């Protein structure tokens, strides 16, 4: 295999291995809990992929994951650890809902755009806090973004519980957004909606940014060696702020899309950890937009197929959580192998032996 092929193939294989290992170990666990692995997995995949509605529902489950995966990947690519995607998503979601139910009389398409832009901007502003702290005061962004998640989730829960609570609601939700702000569904019977188009649009833009623009090159360079990048004349502080802002925008859009397309009102704590799943997806996709897209699709299949598996075969849903957990575990192993370059060391030893 020539060098160019190898460059493409290696990351794909090293992403596939944790997934496959997870499925193999998962099948033993399914057997241990008294179900048939083949039956369960076939229900999983046929539930996610057989038929038009099933595929559309899988794409629906994939939509927020594409965005949270990309948001994480953009920052991680430059070695900036934005762990605050979940919080940025919540602020984006609430802002979109707020604009969605207050701006009465706005023409339909424009209203959707205003809500999306509002969601994106609030995600960006929230990401600017850790960005500024890191760029100018060298505060560790990992800690700040992690902690700010709580602030965002609790703040939006407060907003939905008190000032903006829908009258008569028995849980913490706002009133419905206006019909003009809704991202329409494509087809009766599936929840897939315009949010998917938004996600694909963002994917194309991010792909372009990373592969074809100067900023993408700079991100890569900062990610590989920050001191060198600074030495050759990049304004690192400015770049950190720009990169974090983009990451926040994408995270905010993820939240806005969920509200305008799925919930059509703000529901407190609506996200089943989309931000964290996005982190796994970014790692699985090796911070590459195409990789993220594939990873998001895999997790979409797991989510949509998982519910079908539960509905049809009666295998508990929690087994999907186990498989996801195993993927993370094997990813960590993969990370360790790379980090301590075990493979290269082994190869060197092997080559030395061969020469001798």
């Amino acid at each position, binding site marked *: 295999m020539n060098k160019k092929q190898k460059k493409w193939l290696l990351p794909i294989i090293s992403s596939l291995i944790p997934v496959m290992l997870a499925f193999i170990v998962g099948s033993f666990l399914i057997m241990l809990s008294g179900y048939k692995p083949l039956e369960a997995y076939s*229900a999983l995949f*046929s539930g996610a992929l057989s038929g038009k509605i099933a595929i559309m529902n899988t794409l629906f489950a994939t939509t927020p994951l594409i965005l949270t995966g990309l948001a994480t990947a953009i920052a991680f690519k430059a070695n900036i650890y934005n762990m605050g995607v979940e919080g940025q998503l919540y602020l984006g979601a609430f802002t979109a809902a707020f604009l969605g139910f207050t701006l009465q009389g706005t023409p339909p398409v424009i209203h959707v755009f205003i809500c999306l832009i509002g969601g994106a901007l609030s995600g960006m502003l929230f990401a600017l806090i850790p960005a500024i702290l890191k760029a100018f005061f060298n505060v560790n962004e990992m800690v700040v973004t992690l902690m700010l998640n709580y602030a965002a989730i609790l703040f939006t829960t407060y907003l939905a*519980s008190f000032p903006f609570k829908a009258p008569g609601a028995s*849980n913490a939700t706002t009133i419905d957004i206006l019909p003009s702000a809704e991202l329409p569904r494509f087809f009766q019977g599936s929840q897939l909606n315009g949010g998917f188009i938004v996600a694909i649009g963002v994917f194309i833009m991010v792909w372009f940014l990373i592969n074809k623009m100067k900023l993408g090159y700079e991100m890569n360079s900062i990610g590989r060696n920050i001191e060198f990048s600074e030495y050759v004349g990049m304004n690192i502080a400015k770049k950190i702020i720009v990169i974090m802002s983009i990451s926040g925008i994408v995270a905010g859009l993820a939240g806005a899309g969920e509200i305008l397309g799925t919930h059509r009102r703000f529901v407190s704590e609506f*996200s*089943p950890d989309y931000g964290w799943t996005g982190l796994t997806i970014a790692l699985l996709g090796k911070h590459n937009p195409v990789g993220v897209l594939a990873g998001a699709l895999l997790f979409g299949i797991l989510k949509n197929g998982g519910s079908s598996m539960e*509905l*049809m075969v009666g295998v508990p849903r929690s087994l999907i959580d186990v498989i996801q957990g195993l993927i993370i575990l094997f990813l960590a192993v993969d990370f360790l192998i790379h980090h301590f370059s075990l493979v290269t060391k*082994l190869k060197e030893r092997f080559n030395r032996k061969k020469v001798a």
Partner: protein
Amino acid sequence: MVKHRLNLFSVVMAVILMVVLSGCGSTESNANEEGKIKVAMITSDGGLGDRSFNDSGYEGLKKAEKELGIEIKVVEPQDVSEGEKYLTQLAQNGYNLVITLNLGHEKVLKDIATQYPDTQFAIFNTEVEGDNITSVLFHEQEGSFLAGALAAMVTKDEGVNNINGDSVIGFVGGVDSPGINKFLVGYKEGAKYIDPQTKVIVGYSNSFADPSKGKEIALSQIEQKADIIYQVAGATGEGVMDGAKSKNVFAIGVDSDQDYIAEGNVLTSVMKRVDIAVYDLSKSAQSGKYDSKIELGLKENGVQLSEMKYTKDMINPDYLSKIDEIKEKINNGEIKVTDITKN
């Protein structure tokens, strides 16, 4: 090299697995054995294992399976947005009755119910109108009234645990909402029925999943002389019971019999018999005759106080006969308990 071979091995294994899998994509059978009645239940957030609402519903369903010979299924969606898919698929798979315990499904239920007129749907704790929808509502205010009355009597008994003589009792709610205040109003009315001077301190945790916050509020209420605290706050309530235990006063449990969680420090629990409701619904699935609304109060045993296994002998037996007397009066309409969710 060993590593390499291992990787290759697992890849090959996985590929084989995938091939086998893709070969058997259409084995699902939708056979409805001899027209057996099929009932499905969708859990609310938290799912099974919550020692409360969902587990109680599952108990009722299992009982129905055993005694009525129906086919049952319990499913646990990951988040509220999946409600639509679950409701639709269960209806498509020929379930005669689909019960959802998640009141967040109220918005989608209305549409889906009109799309599947042959399926009966049931939703708990909220009222949704529709020809094939049963709304199950509990008269939590009635059980809370009894709890309030009992608390107002016990709070004067110096010497039982660390009870002080002051007529002050507490309440910790999850959120300030009609669904929770329904309990509060009943509790207050019960307390005032015994002694109009009783003071009720109210606090909200704004979370159903924060035990440490619950404990904090409980301790601050105990500081303000409250010695019996009624918690209506989900898992946050475990902290309230913990706080009551640490100061050796009383908490009052909710939804299921929680007396065992802090033996001797949970005075009683206001139980909501979700199990009975689920069982009754399954029974009507057999007959095919459904009510559009089921209201369960003290009279129907849908709401009741726990048997007070650990605390019965600590308090004056006269109180319990007084409680029975009040219960009788509520049942025959002599005492009217306000339901704030109705105008």
